[in-house]
């Protein structure tokens, strides 16, 4: 969906200012100093591309949602453009402003950015309104639809989307890639995770559960694809640990592993964290985790 935003003269109306959510903090200044005109002085035509609707993931700390925005100059002269982005609380956006130079239309250039939608765990499911303003004028509304939290029945994966942590995370991957619900090694780059310290062990990767829960089984998926078989690239020596009221307890010691999937089943305990400590991998470089799942039994 594309909205054309035409600006032929400087706009200094109070209505536009009120809609410019990001400058509310400056309202006191506006009251003191405003009304002198001047404005941004863009006499340009900038096209905004953004979705009208974003289906967001449930409000879990390690599940993220994002949408793309694009700005294109459709005039013969280069311009600067300001895109302001705001969303209804309690949601927030990774970017509240996108200001950029835009070459003339014949360059065929679109300045794009990916905007992450963030929200606290207690966000109620439903629709939230995001507002995009271009050079101070309302330009587009986006409906962000927040999905409900997954039902946590007796068979639920308690690690899904919860806050992951790691001794280090390589810049090519995401910390949350190991608890995003994707066990497919073919999507390793986008959906897996590994440490940043090549050849240095141990490495730790774990997840903070939402609350203390009975834990009796852990499923650990390491990299295992046709191109990157586990016997060559996967985890080799690992301890699987759960954190109880008494401290860390090792529930499984795996040595010499060459499989893509490790299951640890043990007497159920009340735990609030689960982690994998890797002492070696089959290439002796990185500790590659595709997914860490935690179940009651």
């Amino acid at each position, binding site marked *: 969906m594309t909205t054309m935003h035409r600006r032929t003269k400087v706009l200094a109306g109070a209505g536009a200012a009120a809609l410019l959510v990001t400058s509310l903090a400056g309202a006191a200044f506006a009251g*003191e100093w405003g009304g002198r005109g001047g404005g941004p002085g863009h006499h340009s035509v900038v096209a905004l591309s953004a979705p009208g609707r974003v289906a967001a993931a449930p409000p879990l700390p390690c599940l993220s949602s994002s949408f793309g925005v694009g700005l294109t100059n459709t005039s013969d002269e280069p311009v600067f453009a300001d895109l302001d982005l705001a969303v209804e609380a309690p949601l927030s956006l990774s970017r509240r402003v996108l200001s950029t*130079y835009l070459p003339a239309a014949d360059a065929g250039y679109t300045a794009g*950015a990916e905007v992450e939608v963030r929200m606290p765990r207690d966000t109620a499911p439903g629709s939230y309104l995001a507002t995009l303003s271009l050079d101070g004028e309302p330009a587009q509304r986006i409906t962000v639809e927040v999905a409900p939290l997954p039902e946590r029945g007796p068979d639920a994966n308690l690690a899904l989307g919860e806050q992951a942590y790691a001794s280090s995370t390589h810049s090519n991957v995401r910390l949350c890639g190991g608890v995003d619900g994707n066990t497919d090694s073919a999507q390793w780059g986008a959906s897996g995770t590994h440490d940043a310290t090549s050849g240095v062990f141990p490495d730790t990767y774990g997840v903070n559960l939402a609350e203390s829960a009975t834990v009796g089984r852990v499923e650990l998926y390491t990299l295992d694809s046709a191109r990157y078989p586990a016997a060559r690239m996967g985890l080799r020596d690992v301890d699987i640990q759960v954190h109880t009221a008494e401290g860390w307890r090792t529930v499984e010691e795996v040595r010499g592993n060459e499989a893509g999937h490790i299951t640890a089943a043990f007497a159920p305990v009340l735990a609030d964290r689960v982690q994998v400590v890797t002492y070696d991998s089959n290439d002796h470089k990185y500790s590659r985790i595709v997914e860490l799942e935690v179940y009651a039994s």
Partner: protein
Amino acid sequence: MPVPPKYAKPSKAVAAGRRRFLTGTGAAAALALSGGLAGVATADGRARGRERRDPFTLGVASGDPLPDGVVLWTRLAPEPLEPYGGMPRSAVQVEWQVAEDERFRRVVRAGSATARPEYSHTVHVDVRGLRPWRHYHYRFRVGGQLSPVGRTRTAPSPGTEVPALDLAFASCQNWTAGFYPAHGDLAARDHDVVFFLGDYIYENPIPVDGGARGQQVPAEVGVDCVTLDDYRLRYALYKQDPDLKAAHAAAPWVVTLDDHEVENDWAPRDSAEWVVRQANAFRAYWEHMPLRWDRLPQGPDLPLYRRLAFGRLAEFSVLDTRQYRSHADGGWRAPDADTLDPARTLIGQAQERWILDGLGASSARWNVLAQQVLMMPTDAAAGAAQSVAMGTWSGYSASRDRVLGGLHERGVDNLVVLTGDVHANFAGDLRRDFGDPSSPVVGSELVCTSISSDGDGADADDWTRTILAENPHVAYANHERGYVSCRITPREWTAHYRVADTVTRRDAAVRTRKSLVIGNGVAGIRD
């Protein structure tokens, strides 16, 4: 959620200056000239309906001194780490004053400038009508609020004899790598002018804990700067540093940029993405530097190289070694056919001609190139192997030959090249042919280390020892953090290499590690 913005408190000196101003009777008289005393009278913040947030969180600056004027700078940013610095999308009038005394009893120039949102509410006031070689004090006011007071100095009249000029030069102030005790020292010493030779900001992501500073920063600075708002936010973060603000407020700065104001080593300039990034970076650079309006970038083009004179004593050609260079990778390796290719240039043909024509016609005692990258080779490989930095003049040796050869042919006296970029102090002789130790010395090169980049270093290490051993034209090397403070007289140029004990503390001691002298008409650097 974004972390709440942190504010750097004004330094004690700045706060004291403001109190002094607010209580001085002369100050009140001066203000009466432009009205609005009601807002000033209640400096406790209770004034009715008035904006009480300090808009001058990023300090004040002056730059590019001329015999009759100087450019004054500030930015209105009551919430510097918020979008648009917490300012609305409207223009704001900013009053300014220039006085002969720090209490503003003798205001000699005053006026009003418009801080526009499209320039991040910065102002760049080109004050003229000042007297040559004079100290002045300046300040801004908006609403009822006063800026800190800055001190500046105009250049001497053309053709006059100048007994002494005190200058500092510095570069490379990676915020994440440490504090700026060197700037605090630079501000405390009495410099007539400060040259900043680039890497004012670093474009790389800043960790949430602020790196070596251990200061929480908003998640928005955890990105590579690409958009205009990214670069603006980076300047807003850097310019809150109290020592950097003090250094700007203490003397006029003459700035040029290097690579990190856009991106490490710069990509080849052939993609639309690069053009847009460069235009964004240049716009933010101009907005935040004390540069005149005639330096405003036009998209991806920033007219930056320029010349300033200090009477008959010294003439400074400020170079741009980034925008016009043939591309090279940024590594260190042996010179090869590429580096020798006469078609390649570091500064472009027009700038090469401008240097030769300008310095060829100069009658100044000291002829100075204030620029970014090492001009002399610093071979860092022991033995017969060679390793020089490809991003410096050594990667463009034909370009260097044309400049040094042309200056030698024109009989340019007392050539001194000031250099930054390399995060190390050096001093050396510029030879007509660096491969031939008997070839004539055509000038001297003084290289300043980084203000903070790379964190704490050492006086000597394997790298500096190798360079000293391999390069007979290199007279001095040091690998600590700091800057260079110089006294220039018609008889000699004395360079004091000031180094900080550490950059892990804001209040670290700064001392002179080495002093070197270049004599008038004498080839070579001596202790």
